[in-house]
């Protein structure tokens, strides 16, 4: 016996069953789709050989590289043959040799010790004629001795406080030709058959404002800026103002002038590309809208032109333009302008077609000409869409211009590619990455501000 719910004779039981069935199917669909995604993951992991990440990824190299982005190092090199000469080079570059010892390296004239190097952590490396003594300042207070044995091979020994020999810790690696000591990220000692090389890391970017050869290298930035107001000239043939700014922009290591100019190039590429696209796209969009242009042929061909400009990707336009304009700004500008003329043209012609025609009729009723009808009937309606779309494209094109730069259009993208390819200037890579993120963020904020300012408060 069933309980009749309504006149049609649908029973409560049936409704309950149908609801239950529906819920069951929904559950099934969810489970199947989640299962499908998981299956796809497994397939992809096999296809892309994602297991190889763990093999290729060396945490050592990565951490050293990351360290290089925010720290700098000095190399101290001593030859076993001529231990009287110890050279100290900034970043190990032969050109950047310190004329005298820095304060953390103390030369000792007499006795067995030649020099004492103090690391940032307080640990000490004592250079001697035939060995290096490394004293750790950590709680264990242990002592290590490295040197070249009688057989000509480098050796390592560890002692505790009482002078008893102990096992080597795992951060000392001894091979046939080399002893590698890395007690912490900031300290590194390498003992070779011919020489010993000590790397002393320190936090921060050194010589950021003034490079190694600059007459101002010992000044901090505020000190240098206050020099501008003093009358004493450091270089007789230049005013201090000129000197400070030329030294900053010609900084050999950080290349502030070049990098800033590249940033401006990238920005110019994005701004000009977007501007050209919107200046071309808007009139073309009018011609492609059916309520403006009566000629079907014009509309059809413009639509296909938009499709073509949009469909051929920015990368491909970039490759074509690189051939005709050579590597440089025009390539980027035109690649952006061509792609976005297509996109903006399509979007705007749709917006024009969707515009309310009551306004236009109102203007028409006052006896205005066709052009005035469009000017006061349609343009005010599509202007907010146009402005906000153009600004959105400006944002995304700023990112795009960085990428186009790496593909041959110049600007900061090319600089970044160069810095990464050389592989040893990771502080420059970090610096440029920070600048790129800043550029993108500033452009985002600015376009959001302009949108609010020009078209009032947005929906949210």
């Amino acid at each position, binding site marked *: 016996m069933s309980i009749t719910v309504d006149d049609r004779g649908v029973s409560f039981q049936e409704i309950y069953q149908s609801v239950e069935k529906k819920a069951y199917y929904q559950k099934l669909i969810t489970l199947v789709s989640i299962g499908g995604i998981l299956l796809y993951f497994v397939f992809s992991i096999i296809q892309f050989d994602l297991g190889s990440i763990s093999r290729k990824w*060396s945490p050592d190299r990565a951490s050293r590289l990351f360290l290089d982005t925010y720290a700098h190092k000095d190399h101290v090199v001593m030859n076993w043959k001529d231990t009287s000469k110890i050279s100290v080079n900034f970043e190990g570059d032969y050109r950047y040799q310190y004329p005298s010892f820095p304060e953390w390296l103390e030369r000792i004239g007499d006795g067995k010790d030649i020099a004492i190097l103090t690391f940032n952590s307080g640990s000490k490396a004592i250079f001697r004629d035939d060995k290096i003594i490394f004293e750790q300042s950590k709680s264990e207070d242990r002592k290590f001795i490295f040197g070249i044995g009688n057989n000509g091979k480098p050796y390592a020994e560890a002692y505790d406080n009482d002078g008893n020999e102990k096992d080597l810790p795992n951060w000392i690696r001894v091979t046939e030709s080399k002893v590698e000591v890395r007690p912490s990220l900031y300290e590194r000692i390498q003992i070779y058959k011919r020489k010993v090389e000590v790397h002393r890391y320190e936090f921060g970017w050194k010589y950021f404002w003034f490079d190694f050869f600059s007459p101002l290298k010992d000044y901090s930035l505020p000190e240098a800026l206050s020099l501008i107001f003093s009358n004493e000239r450091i270089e007789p043939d230049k005013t201090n103002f000129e000197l400070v700014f030329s030294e900053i922009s010609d900084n050999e290591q950080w290349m502030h002038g070049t990098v800033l100019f590249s940033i401006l190039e990238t920005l110019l590429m994005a701004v000009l590309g977007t501007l050209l696209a919107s200046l071309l796209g808007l009139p073309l969009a009018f011609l492609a809208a059916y309520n403006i242009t009566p000629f079907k042929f014009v509309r059809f061909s413009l639509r296909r032109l938009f499709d073509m400009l949009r469909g051929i990707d920015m*990368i491909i336009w970039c490759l*074509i333009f690189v051939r*005709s304009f050579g590597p440089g700004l025009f390539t980027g500008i035109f690649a952006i302008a061509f792609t976005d003329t297509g996109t903006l043209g399509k979007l705007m012609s749709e917006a024009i077609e969707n515009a309310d025609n009551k306004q236009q009729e109102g203007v028409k009723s006052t006896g205005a000409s066709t052009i005035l009808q469009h000017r006061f009937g349609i343009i005010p309606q599509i202007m907010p869409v146009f402005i906000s779309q153009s600004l959105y494209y400006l944002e995304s094109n700023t990112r795009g211009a*960085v990428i186009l730069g*790496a593909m041959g259009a110049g600007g900061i993208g090319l600089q970044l590619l160069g810095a990464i390819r050389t592989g040893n200037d990771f502080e420059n890579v970090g610096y440029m990455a920070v600048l790129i993120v800043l550029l993108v963020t500033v452009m985002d904020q600015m376009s959001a501000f302009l949108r609010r300012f020009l078209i009032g408060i947005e929906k949210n």
Partner: protein
Amino acid sequence: MSQNAITIESLEENLKVLARQRAIYSVLFIGAIIFIVVSGVGVANQYNAGSFTRGVENFFDYPADLFSDAFEAGWGWFGIVLSFIPALFETFSAAVFSTVVGASIALILCPLATINLSPNQVTVQIVRRTFDILRSFPELVFALILLYLMGKSIVPAIIAVTLHTIGAMGKLFSEAIENIDMKPVDGLKSVGASWYQIICFAVYPQVLPLVLSYSLLRLEINVRASTILGFVGAGGIGAYLTASLQWRYGDEVLAIMFLLVATITALDYFSSYVRHKLIGKISA
């Protein structure tokens, strides 16, 4: 009567002042744009490797070269096109994989980034800032560093694109979640559902069509991105494109360009078709 006349006159006066102001602003605005364009083109011309006029003259040379090369290849050109399909598939599936992974992670994280649902406001800020950072780093920077670290393969490109996708999608999804109807959430709360149950049964069903449509849009973007990353050394069809460009094999370059344009256009049409269907579902 006289009062009225004064009002109208003063109104007209006002209107004139406003119109003049407007005209001044318009002229300034147009002047600024012209200034930017002219000076920008000047600067660009100065620092460009080739000159502008010569570039315009030569514009059709390269496409003409490509087409004549392809024409010389004759029917064999279609064979070349087919031979690049495996590479295209590699790039495409890399894009699909990073879109799926990125969207899944973003979908899991984004309830934490919305003010109306998150368990506490500190997580909202943390997750949002993470999204911002991931979004504002161009994929290229990530990819170049990872390529340097891991050697040339498509894996760095996948990681870079995935990270960027998480940032971009996370922001969009959390905005979508902020705008949902809160009634189902309240309903579930009233019967004592847990936070996890609320998210699963009141939040996700509401945003699912939007999530799918954004993901399709993102897939399109990611196909382009992984092609570009291939170009700088991450494998796939981008790598073949670099090689063919350097060897100046016009027929191969044209074949790859054709495949790329065809893929992107097909994706464009497919995604706009599906999105219209999905959005129709939302409004229905």
